[in-house]
């Protein structure tokens, strides 16, 4: 498999003011294939979200080589888009204006923006809510908007930072199904950070377990469950076997 995104020896230390430096990533290696769905699980604060921000181009690592499609990464770009944990919707913008944010920043005219946003809003099932403000939506609806906004600029890579962590369990299950549906039709490369092992297995082609801070890749599991996946798959012995294996890797890294 040819790596679409590759990171080699990535090091990053935070130097917050008024506190000591914190080493977030140390000799971090990763390879992601084109169109692959890769999940990262790891203990809180292990640097997994930090790495997403590095890929997004918001944080520059201290050292290391990160390439995408063979080219070194330089700053934010519309070939990548992030779905944020707390949704990250601008509260003073309507659903439609939020979905169109990236297009607007690209300098697209409002008519063209509408041609893009309309089908997306339809796809996420929010037709009729275009003029609503985020505070008028439920958590699940908000994250649909977040997803539509990320898809609007038609990126090759979707970065998802615990996108469903703020949702209740049932909404979460529904959103997972929906995400798989969108991923299968849109053919994006997805890097998905989560705390939930079950979610990672259910969605992914591969699951990476990270060590505690400073984060490194500890082990990568290949998920050979057939696609399309359905909900019942979660109660099969294979699924539970994987869950146990990943948990065994992960539990040593967790300190309470």
């Amino acid at each position: 498999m040819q790596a679409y995104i590759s990171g080699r020896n990535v090091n990053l230390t935070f130097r917050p003011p008024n506190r000591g430096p914190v080493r977030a990533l140390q000799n971090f290696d990763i390879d992601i294939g084109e169109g692959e769905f890769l999940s990262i699980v790891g203990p809180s604060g292990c640097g997994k979200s930090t790495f997403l921000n590095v890929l997004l181009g918001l944080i520059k690592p201290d050292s290391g080589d990160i390439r995408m499609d063979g080219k070194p990464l330089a700053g934010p770009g519309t070939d990548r888009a992030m779905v944020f944990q707390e949704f990250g919707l601008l509260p003073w913008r309507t659903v439609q204006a939020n979905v169109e944010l990236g297009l607007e920043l690209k300098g697209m005219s409002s008519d063209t923006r509408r041609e893009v946003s309309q089908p997306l809003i339809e796809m996420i099932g929010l037709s009729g809510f275009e003029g609503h403000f985020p505070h008028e939506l439920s958590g699940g609806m908000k994250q649909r908007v977040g997803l539509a906004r990320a898809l609007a600029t038609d990126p090759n890579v979707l970065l998802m930072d615990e996108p469903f962590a703020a949702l209740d369990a049932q909404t979460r299950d529904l959103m997972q199904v929906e995400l798989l549906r969108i991923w299968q039709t849109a053919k994006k490369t997805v890097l998905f950070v989560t705390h939930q092992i079950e979610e990672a297995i259910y969605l992914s082609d591969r699951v990476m377990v990270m060590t505690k801070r400073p984060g490194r890749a500890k082990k990568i599991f290949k998920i050979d469950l057939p696609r399309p996946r359905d909900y019942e798959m979660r109660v099969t012995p294979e699924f539970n076997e994987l869950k146990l294996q990943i948990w065994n890797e992960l539990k040593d890294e967790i300190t309470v």
Partner: protein
Amino acid sequence: MTDIRALEADIAQAADSGAPGRSAWYRLEPAILGTASIAVLLVLWEVLPRLITMSAGTKLFFTTPTQIAGTLWRLFATGTIWTPLGVSASGFALGLGLSIVVGLPLGVLIGRSRTLNAMLDPFITAFNATPRLVFLPLLMLWFGLGLEMKIVIVFIGALFPILINTYEGVRNADKTLINVVRSFGASEWDVARLVVVPNAMPYIVAGLRLAIGRAVLGVVVAEFFGSESGLGVMMVQAAGRYQVDVVFSGLIVFAALSLAMTAMVQVLESRLSRWRPQRAGGE
């Protein structure tokens, strides 16, 4: 905890709109009680001085609502109030305008720059804690008794609420939202336009509301102690001549000025905060 309270509010709201029979009284009760208490107060004020016998000297200090209303009417009908009102209003408007022009950009600057914030903090803390009135004798010396002095005292009074609220609003800009726009390749200017300023807007408006009160106060004290004309001067002179009704008329005009301005800001506020679940406070 918050969720439960929000839920309770929802239920209360639902109950409010769902029971048409009882809701009329529920909706009107605050208005009825509020108006009634004001009415009672006015009636007592009107009647009591007539029932209680007072010495002529004490009587000088009392007036009644009808008397005040009559005086107010006379002041406007004869047009005698317009000149002093104009003088006071221009001091108010120019001082407040200047404080906005200075306070907004300065607030944004110290909200975005840690260094500038650290350097200006001692001055802002000291001046904000100190009643700006202490500078009045000094300002009278420097600027005389005219409009300039009034503008300056209004300015230093109204500046800090605007400055501090702008700063708070800018500093509280959500890091995630800034990251969101940056991830789409936004420039610093885009970040300010799309996130920082909209986020600071409710704070700024709240600051503006406070500033209006301070500005009116500034006009009043400036005119009490060191001015040649204006509504406050009219009031002090009236107090010296025991024209209590004129003093109260002046007070009412000042109160009306600040209430009208506050109402305008509230309209602005509700227009600007359609996106908010409820109004934000914050001093």
